[in-house]
């Protein structure tokens, strides 16, 4: 069955980096280590695992970064090759599996992080023991090959595959019938935003600035509005559709990225020195992850404020003098797990499901492609903002129906039926 597989191939890695440099993000897919191949479904790693047939699988910024040859070398030891990308997945449980697993045919979303429980590590690390799988200390260990998440692990398969993936029962969340596939595929990225919005520790009345209004920026704003009580949310959004959506997600002020500094200054009634606001936002969320966005974020956060890295950064060159001088807290926000809300501990995915429904985040899914057209899909995702899109996904529903029909026909032929 058709799947997209990412191999360890340094020449192609270099070629992709070159192509994306000159052609733009996602443009290097054809020369990258990503190949369309025929794969069998992955083996179940253990008794508590089930097979999931993806319906929709999103293309994330981190996927693009990998395919563009731009991801940090930090990840080398926490991924295993070859892997099938795709960690934003809504799918169906495809065959009877582990006890307690959803019944075959049930729709599920997959909590892609591979923590201690999925890895069969007993006792679990302290983070996993507390339900904080995003902070797992054993992502490169256990009976599975290294891999932060499904979609980066050689043993699990990933969402960009008609062959499907395998997931531990602890990673599955049932999708209610009233939730569409488009909404469901937004749950995983929204869970990241939920986690980031809570990691930002926004106090009531705080001024929050959000750099970037792609999927992460928009879902972050929606999550923040749903889970916290900021005084004002200001968003720097590059494209008109992003600005409209940011307002719809609850931003108070939406401006072009180069105007965000000005808007924050006005809101904070700050002075300026050395290109930095002397006051500034209480919290700045960088939902881009570039050197430019980080520098911009640092210039508009107040002394002793918090800068949250929501978008995945790579190797960046950044002047940290102001961070030191102003005692700014720099805080990463990766993935999800268990969130500690006023109402008690809740899974990020549960909260994300609420946010997705409340803010109708299915509308952020702008385009769907079959895996065979992966080059177009990735080019579209890489230029999503410019092309008026937010989230681009692979649609495996038709492929799956076709494969099932073919398999059924083969079965009938083999059994001598007409």
């Amino acid at each position, binding site marked *: 069955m058709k799947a997209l597989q990412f191999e360890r191939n340094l020449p192609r890695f270099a070629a992709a980096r070159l192509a994306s440099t000159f052609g733009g993000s996602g443009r290097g897919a054809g020369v990258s280590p990503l190949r369309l191949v025929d794969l069998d479904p992955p083996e179940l790693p253990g008794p508590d695992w089930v097979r999931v047939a993806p319906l929709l699988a999103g293309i994330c910024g981190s996927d693009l970064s990998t395919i563009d040859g731009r991801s940090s070398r930090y990840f080398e030891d926490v991924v295993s090759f070859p892997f099938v990308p795709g960690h934003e997945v809504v799918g169906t449980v495809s065959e009877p599996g582990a006890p307690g697993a959803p019944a075959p045919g049930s729709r599920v979303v997959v909590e892609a992080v591979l923590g201690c429980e999925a890895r069969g590590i007993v006792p679990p690390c302290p983070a996993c023991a507390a339900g904080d799988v995003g902070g797992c200390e054993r992502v490169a260990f256990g009976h599975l090959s290294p891999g932060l998440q499904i979609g980066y692990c050689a043993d699990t398969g990933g969402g960009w595959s008609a062959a499907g993936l395998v997931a531990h029962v602890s990673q599955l969340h049932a999708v209610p019938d009233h939730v569409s596939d488009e909404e469901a595929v937004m749950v995983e990225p929204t869970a990241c935003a939920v986690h980031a919005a809570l990691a930002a520790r926004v106090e009531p009345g705080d001024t929050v600035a959000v750099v970037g209004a792609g999927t992460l920026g928009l879902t972050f704003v929606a999550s923040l509005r749903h889970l916290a009580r900021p005084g004002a949310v200001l968003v720097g959004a590059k494209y008109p559709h992003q600005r409209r959506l940011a307002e719809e997600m609850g931003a108070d*002020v939406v*401006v072009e990225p180069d*105007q965000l500094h*000005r*808007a924050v*200054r*006005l809101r904070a*009634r*700050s*002075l*300026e020195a050395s290109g930095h606001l002397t006051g500034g936002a209480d919290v700045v969320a960088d939902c881009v992850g570039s050197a430019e966005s980080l520098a911009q974020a640092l210039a508009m956060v107040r002394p002793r404020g918090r800068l949250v890295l929501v978008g995945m950064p790579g190797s960046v060159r950044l002047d940290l003098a102001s961070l030191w001088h102003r005692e700014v807290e720099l805080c990463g926000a990766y993935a999800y797990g268990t969130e500690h809300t006023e109402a008690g501990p809740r899974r990020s995915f549960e909260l994300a499901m609420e946010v997705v429904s409340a803010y109708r985040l299915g509308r952020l899914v702008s385009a769907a492609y079959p895996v065979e057209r992966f080059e177009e899909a990735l080019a579209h995702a890489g230029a999503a903002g410019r092309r008026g899109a937010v989230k681009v996904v692979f649609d495996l529903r038709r492929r799956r129906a076709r494969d099932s029909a073919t398999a059924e026909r083969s079965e009938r032929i083999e059994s001598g039926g007409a």
Partner: protein
Amino acid sequence: MSPRPGFVLEVDRSTPPTLFWHGEGFRLERLPEGTRLLYGPEPLDPLPDPVSAIRHALLHPLGDSAPLPELLVPGMKLTIAFDDVSLPLPPMRRPDVRQLVVEQVLDFAAEAGVDDVVLIAALALHRRMTDAELRHALGDRVFDAFAPHDLLRQHDAEDPSQLVHLGLTDQDEDVEINKRAAESDLLVYVNINLVPMDGGHKSVATGLASYRSLKHHHNARTMQHSRSFMDQEHSELHSSNWRMGRHIAASGVKVFQIETTLNTDTFPEQFRFLMRREWEWSPRDRAAFLASSAALARTPPRLARSILHSIRSPQKMTSVQAGEVEAVHARTTANVYAQQLVEVDGQTDVLTMGLPYICPYNVNSIMNPILVACLGLGYFFNMYRGEPLVREGGVVVMSHPTPWEFNPVHHPSYIDFFEQVLSETTDPIEVGKFEEAFATDPWYVHLYRTGHAYHGVHPFYMWYWCAHALAHLGAVIVVGGDRAAVRRLGFTPATTMADALEMARDVVGPDPTITHLHSPPLVMADVR
């Protein structure tokens, strides 16, 4: 030959296309037959000997005032305030009228043995002038004698130590002005009265005031009740300033007012065609028009702006009067009217106007969209006496490129106003709810006090200036403007004048009457 008065020409088949300013360029527009073209009077003859005229005015004051030399005694504290860079437009060739007047005043002061003299640029909430601008306005001699010793100052409306509160008017308006000026034995104010609004009690009550004082008359309500603010008899802005001015006088501040008027000989020889009536253009005027238009069109906007802002106007002084404020101003106003007033028979459905590259608030700077609105709907629309030139529910068509561009040094709060206030509302009353935050923003205060920025509240004033027009008009159409910027202002963009007039018909009905306010020169309609 004496200058010809202004008049109204009706466009017919033989009328050549009409010249419109279009920012840093020009357009020739063929207006429909029957359109009235309003031309101002030709430039009045200048005073043959301005220095003698100034001396004469100081020695023969108007109203209840002694001649200036009699008011000057040794040991006294003398302050000379003068209009800032917003006047005249364009900046005039050296010597500037302010220089001529200030030099005379200083000569008298020196003769009287007065040695405590301070000069103050009456900025109100305008940007601080640069040294070059001060030197241009006052001349080398005055600048070099005063500036190095901190005796040439710029009014700082945000320094409490430099302000004094003189109490309230009978209408509970705060009167807070420059402390040095208020505590001087004599305050001499040197005006350039370019339009009828300038001068009178407004000189001190506005030019040397604080925000606390200004907000009583610089607001949407006052401007909506100033019909027009160029017509003293019907201007609430004028009335408020007069109440304050009289209160200032009653508080013991002795003001010796000097007002000057200029003729409308506005542009130098290479742009002389701007001042001529189109059907009287000589071959040389046509050639100058074609050459200037082509050159400006091919020049990068920044360079074109720089070229135009380097123009020094050949305007000359037509009158000077000095003495008691109200007596002086009455004479001045008559002189301004003599230069600018044109009788017009009745209102019009559609008023067209070409807007130039400059207004009082962008000297050596960018004419941003807010200033475009202010020049068109604040200044030009209000250049009437009697009835507005355009009828209620009528349309104003302005020609200007209206670039979405701001000078961040001069107009920082304008950027925020445009981005965050006008994006929410363009209603001048509604806009007012944001005023306090801008007026007290510490960054704007800092930039106003230490840089060359207009005060944080200034864009609000520009918008309030439009309040009367916005309440009166059915639509405002901008020809050839940046469409997004024009829409942000709440106006309608049009590509051509023909399109604009077609759009205007949708508002005022078919076969509208059209009147064009021809500028330059400055012209004020006396609508009968």
